């Protein structure tokens, strides 16, 4: 079941850019004002490697940019370690805090499929309803990896 909300072509373009891994640290998507399309709301520029204390530094920025009363979708890179060495993976985040209105949350949930299917290659989804859901440690567990 879906809401029929369309994905703006701009989203797919931004995502393809993101996949190349050159410029962006993460992408934020949201609805346009009359909720007919999903659009790109923000592209966070990647810090150069030498300015970073650790690779996941910009994950905090992502969390800070999620509003406490509105819904968002996000795509970001997560860096983690496995027994076979360091890995990087993409995650798709759906953000719908309990404080958002039911209508927004419903819109988010029923339009998720449209966006997810448009973003080819993004396999792992995190359903976040509160900030602790996005704790990096539990996110990394999804990939069966560790942070250190």
């Amino acid at each position, binding site marked *: 079941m879906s809401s029929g909300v369309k994905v703006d072509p701009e989203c797919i373009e931004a995502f393809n850019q993101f996949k190349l891994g050159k410029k962006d640290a993460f992408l934020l998507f949201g609805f346009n004002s009359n909720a*007919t399309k999903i659009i790109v709301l923000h592209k966070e520029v990647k810090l150069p490697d030498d300015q970073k204390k650790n690779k996941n530094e910009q994950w905090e920025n992502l969390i800070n940019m999620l509003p406490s009363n509105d819904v968002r979708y996000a795509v970001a890179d997560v860096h983690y370690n496995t027994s076979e060495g360091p890995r990087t993976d993409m995650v798709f985040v759906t953000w719908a805090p309990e404080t958002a209105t039911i209508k927004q949350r419903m819109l988010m*949930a029923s339009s998720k*499929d449209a966006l997810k299917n448009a973003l080819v290659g993004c396999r792992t989804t995190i359903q976040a*309803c509160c900030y602790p859901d996005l704790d990096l440690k539990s996110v990394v567990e999804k990939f069966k990896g560790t942070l250190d």
Partner: protein
Amino acid sequence: MSGGIIGGDEVGAMVIDVGSYTTRAGYAGEDMPKADFPSYVGIIEEYADKVESMDISTNATNGEIIKSSEAENKSNKKYYLDPLSLRTPKPHMQVQSYVKDGLIEDWDLFEKVLDYTFSKHLRCDPSNHPILFTEPVMNPKQKREKLCELIFEKYQAPGFYLSKNAVLSAFASSRTSGLVLDCGAVHTTAVPIHDGYVLNKAVAQSPLGGEFILTQSKQLLDEMNVELVPYYQVKSKETVKQNEPARFIRKEINDLTDSYKRFMLKETLLDFSTHVLQVSDSTYNEHEISVLPRISYEFPNGYNTDFGEQRFKIPEALFNRSFLKGVNQNALLDVVHLITSSINMCDAELRSGFFSNIMVVGGNSLLIGFMDRLNYEFNHMNYKTKISAPPSAAERRFSSWVGGSILGSLGTFHQLWISKQEYEETGRVIVDKKCV
């Protein structure tokens, strides 16, 4: 809220959610249903000898011949559909439900209810509004098609959509994957949902629902020798001290039918159980519970007494089968096992996701302490669990209606309706294609 903007191309859809105990109806975009009425109808037949033909009709689901002959008899029947006149005692009035096991069973009766809903509750002409129905997860193909046909053929609606009630509940709490525990009147159902689709094979259902709690309450009151007198039989009563026999004058009404009496008895039991029963917040322990304050309850006839351990004993059966009385214990699943067995039927990869997204909806979950107990039970498991429920009581009872209401109000959703034209081109099978 940006509601006005979202409803840019307003479709004015209607949303109807049929449940075992009540049916909810209203306009999409509103946050509460306009009407929430019992799924029961009072019927008086002019000729008492017609009773037999009615019994046949309730059992027949697809016998066309019986249907048509029954339709002729209809002219002699008088229907009482609004909650007030349904509860008023009338001689020879049968109280019947059009829902059986959560599914629409008596279509003729259901049509009458829809007629009434459109004309009295919603005051609109169904041919101007698309209609969104919710359906139970187990709804068979044949019933979905029949509903589709009814809406287009009889009501000439411009659009129709069916969606699973559990999915709507999940969406309303912003999750596309997770396990919905729907505590309804007749069933408690655990429905795993992945990416907006119900995993049909892993749905687990148990008849431990609201009705079950009522039967157990009845048994308890019988054991305590409390005579349960519904309000309609009480003409006047005097205040009596606690535990003293009731002093009241009984109103004698002749020729009441058994089905009416049963219905009213249930209503009385419902009042009793919402006020008195409570789920113990940890495993039932007679010693601990006996020190808790007792709750006093006054029955309709004025008799009042207080309840201690018994308050906890009845709902405990939802969590611990050894508290079940008079039924085969092995045949039923308690709430915790219902959830775990449903999740264990799913793919191993998905399981942890379900455990961390358990959503509780349905009226029966409003029993005091239900959520606390569920959290307690799952704290003992090895999984990381997170159990959530809509915050307000109304939202929890109406969660699937609210989900349908929002979906139906989205301007973009109108592309997804089955339109009248599509129905006319394809026929009723279209419902299986478009509403998955």
